[in-house]
């Protein structure tokens, strides 16, 4: 049913390597590589812009901008930090979120005083991409169900604190506190 199924034989052998090579070749201004990269990844990235923007024509406009960015920023992809497809999804997701963010009314930053601690968080060693679905599901499972869903909604749908607060019918400050504590718990679990 999915259009990629018929053409995914080579992808299945070493999908990550293939996409990584294509991005590297885009950095070298290889237009043919860009087309192949687009053919292999655009359905996924379109799914991202569509889900976050929830409007087909906006998502179509966004996907164009996303691939222009991919072409322009291909040299910034560093293999090893994140998997290539995760990087592409992040470009698409961040672009869609930028669009939503620019549209939102300027709200007061309640926690302007909240600074990142001086020492910064302890560096994560050997950060590796974890496509392992089980791990994040397990850790989200340690949170209360509502809070886990709120984290998912923030990530997958790009919901703001305001939208989450109204979805779960709690005051916005409560939602912030929920989310922040959840994220700290999540980090402990994911780092364990």
């Amino acid at each position, binding site marked *: 049913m999915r259009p990629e199924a018929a053409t995914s034989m080579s992808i299945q052998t070493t999908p990550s390597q293939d996409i990584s090579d294509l991005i590297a070749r885009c950095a070298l201004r290889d237009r043919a590589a860009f087309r192949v990269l687009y053919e292999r990844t655009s*359905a996924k990235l379109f799914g991202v812009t569509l889900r976050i923007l929830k409007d087909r024509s906006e998502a179509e406009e966004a996907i164009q*901008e996303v*691939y222009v960015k991919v072409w322009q920023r291909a040299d910034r992809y560093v293999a090893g930090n994140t*998997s290539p497809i995760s990087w592409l999804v992040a470009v698409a997701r961040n672009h869609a979120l930028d669009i939503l963010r620019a549209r939102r009314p*300027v709200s007061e930053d309640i926690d302007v005083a909240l600074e990142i601690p001086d020492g910064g968080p302890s560096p*994560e060693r050997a950060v590796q991409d974890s496509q392992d679905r089980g791990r994040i599901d397990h850790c989200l499972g340690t949170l209360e169900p509502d809070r886990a869903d709120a984290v998912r909604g923030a990530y997958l749908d790009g919901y703001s604190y305001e939208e989450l607060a109204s979805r779960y019918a709690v005051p916005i400050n409560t939602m912030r506190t929920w989310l922040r504590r959840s994220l700290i718990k999540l980090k402990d679990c994911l780092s364990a």
Partner: protein
Amino acid sequence: MSTSDDNSEQVDGRNALVAEHVLGLLSASEHERIGRLIENDPALRSERDFWVSRFAALNAEYEETPVPPYLYAKIEARAFGDVVRAGRRTSWWDSLALWRSVAAGALAVAVAAVGFNLLTPRFDADQVAVQLVAALQAQEGSGVEFLAVYDQGQGEVRITSLKGAAVPEKDFELWYINGDQPAVSMGVIPVDQRLQIPLDEATRAQIEPGTVLAVTLEQAGGSPTGVAQGPIVAVGSAIPI
């Protein structure tokens, strides 16, 4: 306002700002500010990558959806079109705006060019012919300037150097270009003497008001490929006199 839980978080010295940034929960101004902090701090970048890669496990929930086929051509036009405009190294021939901007400068020397023209021995007063002049002005401090006159009746371009000196092991090469067409060589030119360049029929038809003349510094004997390779040292567009 602080609850005891908030206090314990402060004592713990931790907060969730990087994760909030990755999730996109911060306001536009905070998002930008924290984004800068992250970019400038390896430890924060590492934490950002941690979150990006862990949340990436949720990406499977994004449903693949085929993009309408007509979009790709638009993407190529935008992606590759931008590169041509932004990429300085593609070709200086693309810089038509620069060239056109010197047309006004050419006008300033038109009077001088008329004088130059009158002094040329082969000037034929009986012939009413189109004459064009181009002042090829120095680019990027090259210190090289030429004046070119095209006489349609004679079917030749006369070029003389106004300023500049020969460069060892190099030659100056003259080119003409019309609109978006590729540059065409008119041959190697000296800097210390006036040169008459006879044009064939096809070339004569190409030289018209607005045609850009340019001089590049090429390897001795001129560009071997027929495509300009060296830096542009003088440029101007042809105007009627």
